[in-house]
């Protein structure tokens, strides 16, 4: 039999419960009077910092080209198998580009592995957390939705560089 004795015996006051109950009640009463921290969401938007992992996006350079070279490492590392990449050849210096880049936002778990593994700093986690869709098809984000100009992602890229 395991030793069932308490580490510390209760005192008489504790044993009659009532003072302890009153203490507990006073604690909740105190909290009822404290200021509230609730954010009134749709009117009041939460603006995350650089460390926030919102939906993953592809970085679009100022000249309109994507950084991504379609190496498929994000797709490989993705634990939820959310990313599908189809590479194709281009005449640009980088040789490869993603002909198709799809993230299934139903599968995505926002772990940020894709961003961590990316050799080109081409996929980063954005601050976008408003991701509602009404069908499975809508949840698959193609290049049209994923490409985001680099200047909008400065916070995150700076954050990443400071921790590399």
């Amino acid at each position, binding site marked *: 039999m395991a030793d069932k004795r308490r580490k510390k015996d209760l005192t008489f006051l504790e044993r009659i419960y009532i003072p302890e109950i009153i203490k507990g009640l006073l604690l909740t009463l105190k909290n009822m009077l404290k200021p509230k921290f609730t954010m009134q969401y749709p009117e009041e938007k939460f603006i995350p910092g650089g460390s926030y992992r919102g939906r993953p996006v592809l970085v679009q350079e100022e000249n309109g080209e994507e950084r991504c070279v*379609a*190496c498929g*490492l994000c*797709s*490989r590392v993705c634990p939820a198998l959310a990313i599908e990449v189809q590479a194709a050849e281009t005449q640009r210096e980088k*040789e490869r580009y993603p002909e198709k880049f799809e993230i299934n936002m*139903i*599968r995505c778990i926002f772990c940020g592995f894709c961003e961590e593994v990316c*050799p080109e700093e081409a996929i980063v986690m954005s601050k976008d957390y408003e991701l509602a869709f009404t069908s499975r098809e809508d949840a698959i984000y193609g290049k049209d939705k994923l490409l985001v100009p680099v200047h909008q992602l400065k916070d995150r890229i700076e954050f990443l560089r400071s921790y590399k």
Partner: protein
Amino acid sequence: MPKLVVDGKEIEFKQGQTIIEAAKEAGNTIPHFCWHPSLSVSGNCRVCLVEVEKMPKLVIACSTLAAEGMIVHTASEKALAARNAVMEFLLINHPLDCPICDEAGECKLQDYAYAHGVGESRFVEEKTHKDKRVPLGPNIMFDGDRCISCSRCIRFCDEIAGAPELTFVKRGDRVTIVTYPGRQLENPYAMNVVDICPVGALTNRDFRFKARVWDMSANKTICQGCSRGCNIELWVRNNEILRITPRQNDEVNSYWMCDHGRLNTFKFVNADDRVDGPYLRREGSLAKVGWDEAFAAAASELKQFNKNEIAFIGSAFASCEDNYMLREFALNVIGSRHIDFMRHSDSNFGDEILRKNDITPNTMGAELVGVTPAAGGLNFDGIINSINEGKIKALYLIEDDILSANPELENTLAKLNLFIVHSSNFNKTTTLADIVFPAAAYAEKNGTMVNFQGRIQRLMPAVATLEQDRSLDGMAMSRLDKFGTRFDRWAKGNKRDVRPTWKIILSLSAAAGYKLIRQAQANMAEDIFEIMSKKIDAFKGLDYDKIGEKGIMLKIDVAEKA
């Protein structure tokens, strides 16, 4: 046999073997780039350096002959230090572009860098730059930066393909590979250099950037390009075949295969013109119908003819099982004696290396299972003549586009009252057919084929169909196949409504009111083979397990059959 000690383990070797060969046979693969078991030794990559006791310096395992009593250390401190140093040298000028390199995932340099590299470079100077994206030939792209100058490709062209087309030029860190002036890398075996290139310097232009190797599954089967039956692997992603690579089988194709087989024998499986479900001719055009309807229609149509008015044409493109079932159907259900198949031969195709003039994979098999005229039956030419004469009014053809092979047959086939065709794709022949059954392509079924040597080899499925599931039917599974659901686009790959010919014939005979196979229920190609192994002498005692992945020689007199 003489013995030497490698890493503390005593192993036997044959006189004349090098250390690397002896060690490999004993299951200890010493790292190597330039050495290839079927090429000559060049010894220029230096990564196979090993320490041999009583030798003053390290030696390269690939060109040092094994000797009695030799004590070799492949992983001693000294050997490892040397290997790490060699890796560092090789990586000095090798670009860090694994992310965009097709070889990534099956790259020797990557593997050894992972195992032996120091992890970072001490080289601060600029790497050398050579020509990138050089098309060496119609199918091969060369990237000079990535080349580690192992010379495997040069030796392959010289020694195996017998077509010296490549050479080194320049020296030192500027050395690079070019074709001889005025020549291209375009011999019929050229694309093997892509497989043997230990890095991503030589890439397959047909497959370039199509898929990462880790997203595909490799499915073992045999090539359909000619009667050699080279052992191959079909690389499949999302139920689509993306490339073919040869699979080692010293009895058949060694490590190689020809470019024709590699490029032209898989695209029809993925093509859009696949027959997807049975088709019946209605008011002049083919219309898709259900299986039961098609079987009922075929059975009742066949009953309208006298048994001597029906002829059967098997196929050297179909498996032994398919041909055997056709024969059983012709002889036992219909009672026709007119059965044969069309021979396809191309005298320009064959050569002394792998390619054979017989461009069908299973001529020998079709003959062995008896797709030849029964006593008093007509052969192929006889059938054609009889059709012209109006004696034969119905033709049952499996898996062969006879019209494309011989366009003169068009008027003949047009005379038929009933023309039933099993075909994987719509082609010229199906345009004349009255009933088209969708036959599974070679990559979609189990089966056996017999090559020109009389070697029986297995076809194994690589592509899922509506009735054949990837995991349940034992096909190779990539990570995507394992975890994909029907809601994932990358797992939704086109599954076609096709069935192997033997199965279609079995259902058709049931629809005609005849139970073709009385023994066990035949659910698998293996069951058909079991029946064949009892009835056909050449297959006696064989089963799929005995044939295995590399095939087995039949005890027949090949010369007599050929």
